[in-house]
């Protein structure tokens, strides 16, 4: 059984974006929140209400199903894997993710796929997100 990224205490989020910085830092070697494979969303006029949108590692990923070139394919134990050379930059994958969890790299025009590495959870000061064992087929 593999561990996947999960929101475990949404209400404890303080909106520091530390998770997004950690993801960008680790995978894109960049100082920014815009290269992160998860998103902390906040809402107009609702001070302190955050919605955390990580890839949930679907058994049947809608993003992969929407990909016309096969660049995104289902990964063992949940999630997707991405082949950059096959991508035609259409963005259909991002549109297909109903929870808006799959992020888009505006600069490179490719999806920012979550590797479920858990680095974001190591930089969450309030235990909002965690790596959780989820039964998924190989």
């Amino acid at each position: 059984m593999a561990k996947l990224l999960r929101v475990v205490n949404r209400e404890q989020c303080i909106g520091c974006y530390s998770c997004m910085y950690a993801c960008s830092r680790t995978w894109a070697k960049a100082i920014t929140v815009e290269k992160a494979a998860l998103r902390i969303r906040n809402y107009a006029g609702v001070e302190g209400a955050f919605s955390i949108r990580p890839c949930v590692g679907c058994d049947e990923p809608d993003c992969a199903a929407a990909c016309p070139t096969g660049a995104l394919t289902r990964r063992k134990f949940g999630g997707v894997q991405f082949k950059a050379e096959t991508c035609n930059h259409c963005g259909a994958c991002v549109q297909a993710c109903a929870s808006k969890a799959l992020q888009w790299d505006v600069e490179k025009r490719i999806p920012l796929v979550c590797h479920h590495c858990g680095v974001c959870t190591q930089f969450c000061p309030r235990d909002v997100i965690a790596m959780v064992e989820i039964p998924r087929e190989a």
Partner: protein
Amino acid sequence: MPRFRMMDVDLTSGTSTITDVTDRFETWLGGTGVATSLLAETDPALDPLAPEAPIIFAIGPFNAVYPVCTKTVAMFKSPLTGNLGESHAGGRLAMAMFGAGIHVLRITGRAPAFSYLTINDDRAVVKQANSLRGTSALAAERIMRDREDTTHKKSIVRIGPAGERLSPIAEVTVDSSRHFGRMGLGAVMGAKNLKGFVISGGSYWPIENLAAYTPFYKKLYDTVVKSTAMQKYHDLGTAMNVVPLSRINGLPTRNFSQGFFEGAADISGEKFAEKHLSQQIACAHCQVGCIHMASLRELFDPEHYQYKSFKVSYDHELVYALGSNLSIQSTEEVLRLLIIIEKQGWDAISIGVTLAWAVDSFQKGIIGQKETDNLILNFGDGAMYEKVLNRIIAGHNEFYRDLERGSDFCARKYGGLDRSIAFGKVEAAGYMTGTYAFLGYATGVRHSHLDAAGYSIDQKGLTKPKSDEEQTKELYQEAVWRHVLNSLVICLFARNVYTKEIILEGLNALNLTGWTEERLMTMARRAHALKFRYKMACGFRFEEIGLPEKLTRVMTSAGVVSKERYRTQMDAFKALVEADIRDLT
């Protein structure tokens, strides 16, 4: 090596330009240093509300890059003081400016119609928005966020109706409950026909030196999150000071009549937490989360069980300014006043101190029912304060319209200057710990408790007495050192995390090499001196920054403050600054 850019927006023509200002950052580091150098190049005779008067927003090389480096400096000519205006705010602005790829945003001109500004990467657009006129600072945020659905993370900066009315104590609100509170930036924006701006972008810095940056970042993160260095700011927040300060006669009560507040326990940090704290939130890239959000639930139709709920942030300064100093000992009443102030967009300290002056002057017969239109001003009367605020908003009569021009203006017009608790026309913050709290307000470049934390010198002196010469030197050195922190622009709550050694290591990890302790301190001393030179060119004189007469008669934590001692130490501080000004040339 990272590059730094400045965006200039001219609201009159609706045009913008971008300039590389890396050289300026090499000299002035960033933030307050860079902003000072830019303001000092302007004509000191400019009317603060003239179209040509610039608003300079500046961040530094650590913003968005390291934990708790979350602040943005705003610099402008203050309509409250007529000289240097400076205020700092957190929120998401520093992150969003970094994302837009600009470290300085300089706004000049006056929009032909009531407008707001959007900045997406390199593109700035002035958008006419007459329907936003008169909207509260909170409503404006909802509307602008809704309309500007940007791809990248954004920051929303705006004024309330007070800024539109050009109140010199109007503030500018940033995102969720952060403010450029002090010195009237709200009026400067209002005079530019600018309701606010939304800024975002996808710029970033690649990590060039991964081997240095990653472990250094982790070390900082662990200090911030896992050590006790910043715990108090998260737990109760600065409101934890309320009771301890009152115990040592340091909590301003009833317009600084005394430092002990009998109701301190009822408006303490603990009490707010137990009754109202709904959650802590954070500025972007700060893992502390010091913003304490209070919920206030009110029954507005008892017959039908109709409730409404508000959320508003609180901290020590607000609890002092709208609590003890007005003799309000109900958390609910403090919050009700805060909500009105938050929507209007006044600086909470300034409006609170002005209300306290009004009540004090009413009770001494300096103003009467003629001015107040039959309202009786009593300390402790929350419903009355709400009425006063609502009359200011409605422009009820000349007296109420004057109240939003600050306590110094009112005292000069109506009398009671001896009880106007302002230094250099800036209403005082929430500490009456002794001579150095007051000297701190008086000698601070922005007349803020944050300029050099004089209150801390007073408190240390209670157990470890030192000579005035030593203490004044400490005040000066702290004021200078904070120019390093404010150039980077680190949240001052993290001042003990960011030591000189840590700062130099952090600059090196970004390949910003060549900085040494000596070079940092020279820059800081020069920026500090340059501010005073600009202030003086605007007419500022140390000699004119007197100690409000009332403060010579009250018992502070460190006893009665003598006018002679205050003046002698003002002269000593002035001599230190003048030596630095001579070195500038």
